């Protein structure tokens, strides 16, 4: 059995009597890129700082590479961190910034030069080595910060919202670079972000955090297909999942009958445990809502109130008839012929629908996703 790279056991952290990390247990395997994602204030950065040793847990244990480092000094943990602000030393050149840790370690000059040059080459920084950070662009600074981390060859890389200070175009580009770098170095990485797109695209495993607790852990597509609760369902996926309040009418072995404001639906379900009469939330992702071709196949009807055309795809916002709830969002083809105030009939792909109990926990799984597991996601 291989040793986990990072293992958290019931880690808790209290600041001034306020518990911000409420018992987190987690394993990160060697070579894995794990993304902590969640809204601001959910504790994801604190959790990263606990792993880095910049904070000490109030209770619980942290192991890195099989060693208990709960109270070890940050430099004795075998971790390197890329800060949100980059934290580059402004008075040092790029070379000196990257070489800083190696100089502190007292490595011979030739070895330092060799390592820094190798890192600079990987990150295409060679021509910038003599510059100071302020003479660099945001993306270049980001690469220097990464260079400073990789030159130390740590057991674990820690990224604290590394792309949040970059503009959108650069963020996409750096995201690809980080993904490529991860594949190349195959280093264990823990990455914090509030951006679910970053989480989905980068992660081998996503950890969704909310109010100091883990809501769900899984591969990106697992979380997308089988969100364990309403919070994860709402957080993963953009635009977010549509939800409609409903009441359970009847329950059979493979379906749950629902009373919706406009209609009665039979939602195919695997492993649903719910009683008739229960209040539930029905969920459907924007791409699983379609325009109905005929009245017979329509489930819902409403009016288009807003159309967002992105070129390749179109988002249509539809308010249901006789409903005061949030408008539903549909994801349609870029050329979809729609106009404002148009009356539309909607068809729901019921095999890909979601169902949540009153406490937010998922009820069963939709048949299309039931047999898809983590393994089928990764190739």
């Amino acid at each position, binding site marked *: 059995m291989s040793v986990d790279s990072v293992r958290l056991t019931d880690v808790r952290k209290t600041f001034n009597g306020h518990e911000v990390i409420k018992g987190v247990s987690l394993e990160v395997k060697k070579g894995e890129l794990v993304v902590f994602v969640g809204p601001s204030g959910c504790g994801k950065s604190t959790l990263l700082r606990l792993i880095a040793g910049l904070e000490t847990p109030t209770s619980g244990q942290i192991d890195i590479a099989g060693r208990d480092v709960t109270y070890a000094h940050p430099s004795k943990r075998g971790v390197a961190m890329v800060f949100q602000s980059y934290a580059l030393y402004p*008075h040092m050149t790029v070379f000196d910034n990257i070489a800083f*840790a190696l100089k502190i370690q007292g490595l011979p000059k030739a070895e330092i030069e060799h390592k820094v040059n190798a890192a600079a080459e990987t990150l295409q920084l060679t021509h910038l080595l003599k510059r100071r950070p302020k003479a660099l662009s945001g993306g270049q600074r980001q690469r220097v910060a990464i260079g400073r981390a990789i030159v130390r060859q740590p057991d674990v890389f820690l990224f604290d919202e590394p792309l949040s200070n970059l503009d959108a175009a650069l963020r996409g580009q750096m995201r690809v670079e980080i993904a490529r770098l991860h594949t190349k170095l195959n280093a264990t990485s823990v990455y914090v972000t509030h951006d679910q797109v970053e989480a989905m695209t980068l992660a081998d495993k996503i950890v969704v955090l909310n109010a100091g607790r883990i809501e769900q852990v899984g591969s990106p597509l697992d979380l997308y297909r089988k969100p364990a609760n309403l919070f994860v369902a709402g957080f993963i996926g953009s635009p977010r999942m549509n939800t409609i309040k409903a009441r359970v009418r009847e329950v059979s072995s493979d379906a749950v009958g629902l009373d919706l404001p406009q209609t009665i639906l039979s939602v195919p379900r695997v492993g649903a445990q719910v009683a008739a009469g229960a209040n539930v939330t029905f969920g459907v992702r924007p791409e699983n809502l379609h325009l109905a071709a005929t009245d017979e196949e329509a489930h819902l009807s409403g009016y288009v109130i807003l159309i967002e055309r992105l070129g390749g795809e179109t988002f249509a916002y539809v308010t249901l008839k006789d409903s005061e709830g949030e408008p539903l969002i549909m994801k349609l083809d870029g050329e979809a012929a729609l106009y404002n105030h148009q009356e539309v009939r909607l068809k729901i792909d019921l095999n890909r629908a979601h169902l949540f109990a009153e406490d937010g926990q998922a009820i069963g799984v939709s048949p299309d996703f039931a047999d898809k597991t983590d393994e089928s996601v990764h190739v």
Partner: protein
Amino acid sequence: MYSNKWIGSLYITPFVIGFLLFTAFPFVASFVLSLTDARLQDQLGAANFVGLSNYTEMAADSTFRQSLGVTFAYVFITVPLKLAFALFIAVVLNFKLKGIGLFRTAFYLPSILGGSVAIAVVWRFVFAGDGLLNQALAGIGIGGVNWLGEPTTAMFSIVLLRLWQFGSAMVVFLAGLKAIPEDLYEAADLDGASRLKQFFMITLPLLTPVLFFNFIMQIVQAFQEFNGPYIITAGGPLKSSYLLPLMIYEEAFKYFNLGYSSALSWVLFIIIAVFTAVAFWSQKHWVFYAQDRDDKGGH
């Protein structure tokens, strides 16, 4: 509308009048006087133009040479010591401790009081032959030291007064320390740099603009020190604490040599100007500005 412009000008006239009357005029007048043999008790009309002879006279004046030596010694001792002390206290007061605000206030207090005549008088009582310090020393069996009667110890006592007023430099250092981002230290922690290394490799370089500012201010102030030595030692004994400002004062108001005193003032002014200019010239070699616009990365 004519009014806004004129009313605006009106508001600044008190300052302009004050500046012209009490700064610009004396500045020019002192230079003119320094070229004459004007004496305080005579009509100004009786003064004769003597060219640069007041200045050439200084070269042969042993009192001037003594005073100049004492002044340089005073500046070269007090400025580095005071800066080091102020920085040390600022670093300590930058720790996140309970009640640190109280300590910051307490440590700043001497600077509010320090420059005043009253404190200089208190200082004289402390260092007098039968003063507080000697009484305290007697209590632990050490015989009285004639603090103000010996050249070295007299200098020591006025140097100490200056160091005691470290507060304003300390506050500026403290502000500078607070401006250094916390994550630089966190990054250095992860990189394994000890506190001492962090201080010399991160704190000190990033503090150089503040250090430079404090250095200039302290140089300028130290050269002009008057209250302390005038009240505590009166420049003695044997002119061992006879700083240039004391000599300027005595030449003018004790010996009535207005012309010579003015020339001395101008020499002091030129000395301060040269030191400041050298400091400004040197800053490109040791002062690091994080924000300057034209840096291409090193010199």
